[in-house]
């Protein structure tokens, strides 16, 4: 069973490579293009294109699902295996992060934070196997940012709509238009930050590969036959830069996206008003039940 889950978590990535080899047309030379659109679903409000980015992000979702199954499927209380140690460490570290950044009230956010962090990091790391990284498409990252924006607004509404509307008039009422712009800019800046970092990394990698091809043609072009065409400088050298642009940048952006989600959600939440309201409600409830008891006793 363990092996089966492990295989099932690797299979989607292999399927992604196979889909890319089968259906994505090979571009001649080095070119920079967006995600390849496989097909378009006709809908009443215009077509819905199903692109490489979407397919790859679905594959990452399936792969992560089976990987989590692999980590957690056979938990024990003693004689624990290496898998369980890794799973416990992951859960503990994410919960520690949420506790230190959001406080005890938001402990339920651990699932969302861990999910978005894992999804984002694994999507960015897809470049290592040569697939199109879904995070370099604004549609995917924009979706996550909108999700976060809905969560932020929901928690701002927790203490009633009046407090939400009044929060735009702070510190002085005539700054309200700026506050509204700032509110809308939050998801846009989150999406652009993540997508711009990953996309710029991949564009710089492509440009460096093109440069190295030309330089090696200049240096080794005089060699006879196939040796003259072979880009020697492209072997190994771009990998050094890939450590920064793919590994470090991808993981850092995932961490920052999760961190900003936590900070925005807990920062926008009107804590004092919420607990005051809650106490008032409970007091009212207690009063009501007491009144009912009293009347019952009187009868």
């Amino acid at each position, binding site marked *: 069973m363990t092996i089966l889950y492990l295989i099932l978590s690797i299979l989607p990535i292999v399927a992604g490579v196979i889909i890319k080899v089968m259906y994505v047309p090979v571009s001649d030379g080095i070119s*920079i293009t967006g995600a390849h659109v496989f097909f378009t679903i006709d809908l009443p409000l215009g077509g819905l294109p199903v692109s490489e980015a979407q397919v790859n992000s679905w594959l990452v979702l399936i792969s992560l699902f089976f990987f989590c199954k692999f980590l957690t499927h056979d938990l024990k209380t003693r004689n624990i295996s290496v898998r369980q140690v890794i799973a416990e460490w992951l859960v503990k570290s994410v919960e520690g992060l949420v506790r230190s950044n959001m406080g005890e009230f938001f402990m339920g956010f651990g699932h969302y934070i861990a999910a978005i962090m894992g999804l984002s990091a694994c999507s960015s790391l897809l470049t290592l196997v040569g697939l199109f990284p879904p995070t370099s498409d604004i549609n995917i990252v924009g979706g996550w940012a909108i999700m976060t924006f809905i969560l932020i607004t929901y928690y701002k509404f927790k203490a009633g709509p009046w407090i939400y509307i009044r929060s735009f008039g702070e510190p002085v009422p005539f700054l309200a238009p700026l506050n509204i712009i700032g509110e809308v800019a939050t998801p846009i*800046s989150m999406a*652009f*930050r993540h*997508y*711009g*970092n990953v*996309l*710029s990394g991949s*564009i710089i990698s492509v440009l460096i590969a093109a440069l190295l091809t030309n330089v090696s043609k200049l240096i080794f072009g005089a060699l006879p036959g196939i040796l003259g065409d072979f880009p020697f400088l492209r072997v190994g050298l771009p990998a050094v830069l890939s450590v920064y642009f793919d590994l470090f940048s991808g993981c*850092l*952006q995932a*961490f*920052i996206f999760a*961190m*900003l989600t936590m900070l925005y959600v807990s920062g926008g939440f009107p804590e004092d008003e919420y607990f005051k309201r809650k106490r008032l409600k409970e007091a009212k409830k207690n009063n009501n039940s007491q009144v009912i008891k009293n009347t019952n006793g009187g009868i």
Partner: protein
Amino acid sequence: MLELAIGIILGGCALGAGCAMIAGIGPGIGEGNAVAAACEAIGRQPESRSAVTTTMLMGCAVAETTGLYALVIAILLIFVAPGRLVNILLEAVG
């Protein structure tokens, strides 16, 4: 005449992308200041190294945002805008 118009479009897009990337100065200076302050803090209190590093990376990422806006504009100007504008021109000419 059409060649000239297309040439002006391509040149304008390239110039615009170059001008947009002037915005790279801002994040460069800002992140430099942030890292300098972080180095000072670590030098003063070496035991707070991990907390300072995490906070510094967060701040750097936020300071980078304006630069990334410029980058997105530049990418759009180089890879997307010329094709669209040339299409519009050809449709207008007929």
